[in-house]
């Protein structure tokens, strides 16, 4: 990180803290116009430091080795594919997955926030899915909170010597679930119920999202494992460059 980038990152963090209004809890796609303006701005500001950090981290990764671009592009493309697939679920409604797990495992959570916001903007502008006013909140849940959990779980599994495929599955699965939990909390913060307040409201929203999302999260976990197997087989040099595979691990 150069000095200027460091200053930029620090400034963004301070800015976010000043405005954070301490949204105590962290909180998928919230529809356009469904979140009060203050919340839209607040979530947007909370995302800023992650986006700045992500931008810097991506820039450095490309600078260290231009070939890293291939895997970055693939992680972004993975989010594009996975988040466009609307899949029927046990509750009788459809939902889609996030696809951010792969990027989080390969490049860390900050980098994914940049990849995620690209997809969210695409969907908000062209598909009226999600929204520009709710972009901040959606970025936070899908491109910041979910990947953070995925990354954390993957690292934790690494420490505990869990089989790599199992840990990839768990990371993507829990990251997806967590994204929807965060969305529920975001909606609940903005719409506390009359009886029971935010908590009761959060339970209600979770009741809508969680059962639908559970099977989809399993699918997301599976697909992420499949693409990781593919990369492990054919893209060993690239994975080594980004430190995902260490020396001998490769075959």
């Amino acid at each position, binding site marked *: 990180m150069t000095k200027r980038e460091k200053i930029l990152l620090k400034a963004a963090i301070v800015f976010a803290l000043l405005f954070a209004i301490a949204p105590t809890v962290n909180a998928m796609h919230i529809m356009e116009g*469904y979140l009060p303006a203050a919340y839209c701005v607040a979530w947007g500001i909370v995302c800023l430091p992650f986006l700045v950090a992500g931008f810097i981290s991506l820039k450095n990764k490309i600078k260290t*080795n231009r070939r890293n671009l291939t895997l970055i592009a693939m992680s972004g493309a993975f989010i594009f594919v996975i*988040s466009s697939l609307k899949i029927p679920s*046990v509750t009788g409604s459809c939902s889609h997955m996030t696809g951010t797990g792969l990027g989080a495992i390969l490049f860390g959570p900050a980098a994914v926030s940049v990849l995620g916001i690209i997809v969210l903007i695409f969907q908000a502008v*062209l598909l009226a899915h999600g929204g520009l006013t709710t972009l901040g909140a959606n970025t936070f849940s899908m491109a910041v909170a979910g990947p953070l959990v995925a990354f954390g779980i993957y690292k934790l599994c690494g420490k505990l010597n869990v089989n790599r495929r199992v840990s990839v599955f768990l990371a993507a699965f829990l990251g997806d679930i967590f994204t929807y939990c965060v969305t529920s909390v975001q*909606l609940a913060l903005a719409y506390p119920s009359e009886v029971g307040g935010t908590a009761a409201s959060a339970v209600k929203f979770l009741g809508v999202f969680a059962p639908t999302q559970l*099977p989809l999260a399993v*699918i997301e976990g599976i697909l992420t494992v499949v693409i990781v197997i593919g990369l492990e087989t054919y893209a060993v040099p690239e994975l080594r460059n980004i430190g995902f595979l260490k020396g001998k691990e490769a075959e």
Partner: protein
Amino acid sequence: MSKNTKTVIVLLVIAVLIAAIPLFALKDAEFGGSDDAGSVMIEEIEGEYTPWFTPVLETALGGELPGEVESLIFCIQTGIGVGIIAFFMGRFTERRKWQKATGLENADDRKGKQ
């Protein structure tokens, strides 16, 4: 068939089953979006709720995006993603074949590392 190929096939079959079973099991369900279920829930809590901002595209079109066009754009999104992944995967696969064939297996990409 290698062990990996088997694992991948089994995993993909499971994924397809998870997605397909609800469709057959719940014949009466509408399969609307769960994002919409969210707005229904908001109305339940708040009473009537009018979104204060309409999507830019809907304002420009003066109405909702037609369903067919929406699926078109979703397809484009999938297409872009699959295209990129397939392109690079194709290159990786060919590279490995070529490395094996010429015995240059370890002449890997460290040069790029500097």
